[in-house]
């Protein structure tokens, strides 16, 4: 029962989770900062494509292996690594996953490739579609910021609803937090977020919307979930939502319910969350990037914890 293990019990052995981060852009750099501050992890390598990248230079003296020839440069380190985080691009991810499989390791996919299994940590073992792999070789997709921020609300509302007819997710993010990858892949973002909502609810009438707001000072990310169904148990929905939001908050401290689930028209329930970033490397208004990175770290933790526990059981 890994979910009963409190964080204080960790580490169950003295072994830290040894990882590499591939991709030295904004996301990769923030992820690296976050992992360096997390006592459960040891970052063995930070991997880019240019020795002069500002991300790599920033980690000088802090990460033992700063590598600039892509995933190939990890070759001598595989024996020591537990797994890797991929913060590159959807096209590069396919190649990275092939190599990770050869080495029988896990990979957390922060790109919009949609190759990995979509996972939202708060729903592990709650939703049938969200499970930690029983094999060490695994590929988890962190979906999108809209997906990570909406999943708890979608789950809580639809769990206590009968005959879910429609699910809608709308997110607004600060323009400054939307890099070229987000802007170029806005259709893929929508597809991937909608796919998660369908996986979670079985409902095919799903819609995802993304809005960029250029206001100064930058706006905090907000995600609204709207569900239409034959009927609801609002009391249970409120209880479940508050409970899940608190659980998300344990790994995304800036996650808050700003509009509680309420009746928004006949047969409709709506609720809104706000995501403030933790400010590791990216500014606080980048809640959209923060929640993806936080989910990646939590997923890796859960995966390693589950598989080490399983290995320990087999040994004993």
């Amino acid at each position, binding site marked *: 029962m890994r979910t009963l293990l409190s964080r204080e019990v960790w580490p169950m052995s003295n072994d830290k989770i040894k990882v590499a981060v591939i991709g030295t852009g904004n996301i990769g750099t923030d992820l690296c900062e976050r992992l360096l501050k997390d006592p459960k992890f040891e970052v063995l390598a930070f991997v880019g494509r240019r020795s002069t990248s500002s991300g790599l230079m920033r980690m000088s003296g802090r990460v033992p292996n700063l590598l600039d020839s892509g995933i190939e440069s990890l070759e001598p380190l595989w024996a020591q690594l537990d797994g890797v985080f991929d913060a590159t691009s959807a096209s590069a991810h396919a190649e990275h996953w092939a190599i990770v499989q050869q080495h029988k390791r896990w990979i957390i996919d922060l790109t919009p490739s949609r190759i990995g299994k979509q996972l939202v940590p708060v729903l592990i073992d709650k939703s049938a579609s969200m499970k930690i792999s029983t094999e060490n070789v695994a590929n988890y997709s962190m979906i999108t910021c809209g997906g990570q921020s909406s999943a708890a609300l979608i789950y809580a509302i639809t769990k206590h609803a009968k005959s879910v007819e429609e699910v809608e997710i709308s997110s607004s993010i600060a323009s400054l937090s939307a890099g070229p990858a987000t802007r170029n892949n806005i259709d893929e973002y929508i597809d991937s977020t909608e796919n998660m909502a369908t996986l979670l609810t079985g409902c095919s009438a799903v819609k995802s919307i993304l809005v960029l707001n250029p206001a100064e000072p930058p706006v905090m990310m907000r995600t609204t979930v709207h569900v239409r169904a034959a009927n609801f148990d609002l009391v249970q929905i409120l209880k479940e939502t508050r409970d899940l939001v608190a659980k998300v908050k344990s790994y995304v401290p800036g996650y808050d319910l700003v*509009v509680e689930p309420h009746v928004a028209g006949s047969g409709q329930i709506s609720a809104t969350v706000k995501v403030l970033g933790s400010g590791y490397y990216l500014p606080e208004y980048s809640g959209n990037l923060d929640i993806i990175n936080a989910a990646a770290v939590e997923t890796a933790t859960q995966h390693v914890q589950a598989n080490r526990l399983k290995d320990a059981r087999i040994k004993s």
Partner: protein
Amino acid sequence: MISFYDVTLRDGNHALRHTLTPDFVREYCQIAEQSGVWAVEVGHGNGIGASSFLVGKAKTDDNSLLAAARESLNKVKLAIHAIPGFATIKRDLIPAIKSGVDIFRIGTHVTEVTTAQKHVEFLSAQNQTVHGVLMMSHAIDLKGLVSQAKLMASYGASAVVLMDSAGNYVPKDVVARVAALKQEIGVQVGFHAHNNLGVGVSNAISAIENDATIIDGSSMGLGAGAGNAPLESIIVNYRRMTGSAPPLDKFLEMSHLVEMKYPEFLPRTTSSSIQSGDAGVFSGFAPQVRQLAAEFGVSQEDLWQELGKRRLVAGQESMIREIAQDLMNL
């Protein structure tokens, strides 16, 4: 030569709370076909693919509206508006190509043109006529406006249309902006007025006088907030200015049809529209502002002011509730 672009069946859908029916579209397009208007834009108020709880569910899906329009339009072009983030290439634009749409307008908030690159390039590669639309075009300085318009043109847009989505411009703003674009971007320039401050028609005329060649309007001004510049008023003004214009009769017939069919939905300049126009807030928020101000017992004026301060953009309708809630708790 001015191309008059009729947004009654798209922007008007905001005023109708997205209840437009195929029957009305057919009836309207039969007159439009005889009118000398260049194009008729059809679909959800926020463009095709935008029907949602967030901005309003459409009574009839876009494809059915487009099919009804296509049946009745022959000389006159069929056009759509689409916003990346709401509409996708696969789900919305490809079906629109199949529905026989002639003109594709891809719109973004004025600072976010890069989100439209893939959509504009895709349509361009399919040899479709694509226009780039800069929504809320008042919400940027002149230099920024020019650079965003240039980006649209670089992706393959054959025209860039300035939307005064908040109805915030006075004629001198239109003069400065249209003239700058004409000089800098090398593609056609269009202008789309809203009448929040009561100067929609004057703004459209200023755009014409500064060589904008695509002019948007709607019959009876049917459109978001205080409505658009009434097309029939633009036409009569244009005739008085130049001595040549399409005959007025069919435009009056279209406005009469709208007036008879939807008397309770006709937009007008109101105290609320003046507040929103002056605050530079998207006109399409009007229904939510009315409803939520009443629900939370706050004044519409305070709510408009606050939306202006927080610089909300179209698609952030769900934040209006949160802001009304904050105002109530002040």
